[in-house]
């Protein structure tokens, strides 16, 4: 566990293997909500929060429940249940305690349950930081940090994309390419430019 490894996780999660542009997780929400900057930012905040928290929770479940009892084949089902419950719980808490916060990003919370990015990161963490069902040293911190970075990558892609699409609204685009097709092509070029960080070694 050292700083270089964390930096590698950061560059990998934010740029090279960006959740949206390279792993294609959370793509549905990406094309659906990136039309304007404000909702895109709110959604990103919600996703960042949920991904970070669910990385922590699923790590504990995997490490202290599934591995000791030999139940690792229940990974998918237990993770999705926990994430769904957690998101539901957060939504209720936010709605009851802070109407302002709820208006800001609460409405996106139910959507996040079926956002593949959240489950994807949980599964990835387990795949990367558990070897033969044993946690590698520092795996908790790696999982937590990867959760945060993936959230950042999601936010970055969302932010850039929403800016681009706001500008494309004003353009005289060929009719067949409007909306989804051009959004995908812009995303493709963005993904291509993120390739510049390929093979990053500190």
């Amino acid at each position, binding site marked *: 566990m050292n700083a270089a490894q964390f930096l590698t996780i950061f560059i990998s999660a934010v740029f090279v293997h960006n959740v949206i542009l390279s792993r294609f997780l959370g793509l549905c929400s990406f094309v659906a909500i990136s039309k304007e*900057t404000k909702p895109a930012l709110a959604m990103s905040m919600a996703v960042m929060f949920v991904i970070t928290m669910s990385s922590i929770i699923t790590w504990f479940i995997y490490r202290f429940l599934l591995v000791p009892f030999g139940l690792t084949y229940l990974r998918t089902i237990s993770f999705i249940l926990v994430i769904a419950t957690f998101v539901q719980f957060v939504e209720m808490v936010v709605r009851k305690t802070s109407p302002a916060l709820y208006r800001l990003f609460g409405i996106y919370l139910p959507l996040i349950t079926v956002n593949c990015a959240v489950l994807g990161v949980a599964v990835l963490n387990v795949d990367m930081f558990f070897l033969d069902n044993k946690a590698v040293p520092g795996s908790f911190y790696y999982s937590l940090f990867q959760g945060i970075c993936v959230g950042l990558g999601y936010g970055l892609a969302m932010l850039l994309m929403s800016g681009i699409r706001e500008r494309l609204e*004003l353009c*005289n685009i060929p009719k067949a390419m409007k909306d989804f097709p051009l959004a995908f092509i812009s995303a493709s*070029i963005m993904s291509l*430019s993120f*390739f*510049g*960080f390929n093979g*990053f070694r500190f």
Partner: protein
Amino acid sequence: MKDRLIVSISPHLHKEESISKIMWMVVLSLIPSGAAGVFIFGLSALWVILLGIITALITEAALQLLTKGKISIMDGSAFLTGLLLAYNLPPKAPFWLPIVGSFFAIAIGKQIFGGLGQNIFNPALVGRVFLMASWPKHMTTFIAPQNYDAVTSATPLAMLKEGKLLEKLSYLDLFLGKRGGCIGEVCILALLLGALFLLLKGYISWHIPVTYIVTTGVFAYIFGLKGLFTGDWLFHILTGGLILGAFFMATDYVTSPLTRKGQIIFGIGCGLITAIIRLWGGYPEGASYAILMMNAATPIIDRFTRNRIYGTR
């Protein structure tokens, strides 16, 4: 005076400057470095340039015919895209490389977005990174300069990445283009001549190029070698596509921010990303990726650096 010549979306000020005149002026300013490239690498470089330009013009015309738009290949923008793309190719590229690249640059980089003035990304760079990702072998096979007694065919940055020593190259060699590299990027002297012309005529402002180059230099100086503040900043400025990118591609009106503040942010961003890729990335050169990434960020930069309208918040 200079400020009035900056073109923004929907130009409200009337001047005798037109878009096509500016485009042809940029083309003119790029001729010295192209000539230097042909002189250094031989006639094959000229074919690459011509193929790039011709394909760009044909693609533009064909797509405008297909979409029943006005055919505007004489406005110089497609010419410039083809030229810039060819400048970013190795001099002995196989004949289909500039053709495919130019086609991709115009079709995907520009026309799909609705044509001139509406593209988000610099078309020539879109073409280049597409070629780079698709045929890395052909894109990085360089030849040694012919008219100098050449030292090596690999680019200095690639040698640096492999940890080879660079003692044989003096700064003067680099300045005059005595090194392997892409056609239009090697002769710094010719590029600076063209850039000076554009700056003096006011076609580009200094904000993006200067911040871009200075940031890359400073970053390379601080982190370039093992000890802090010992890096070879001049080497990093004189090699790779930095000068070509900073003066001729990062300053593209359509894909860079409109405000001064935005342009400075843009330049610094480009410089940081370029230096980071050069020092720690997998590729020897990062200028094209850096500019494309900042192109993607341009709408957001514009949004947050918009000039405040008097009396509003």
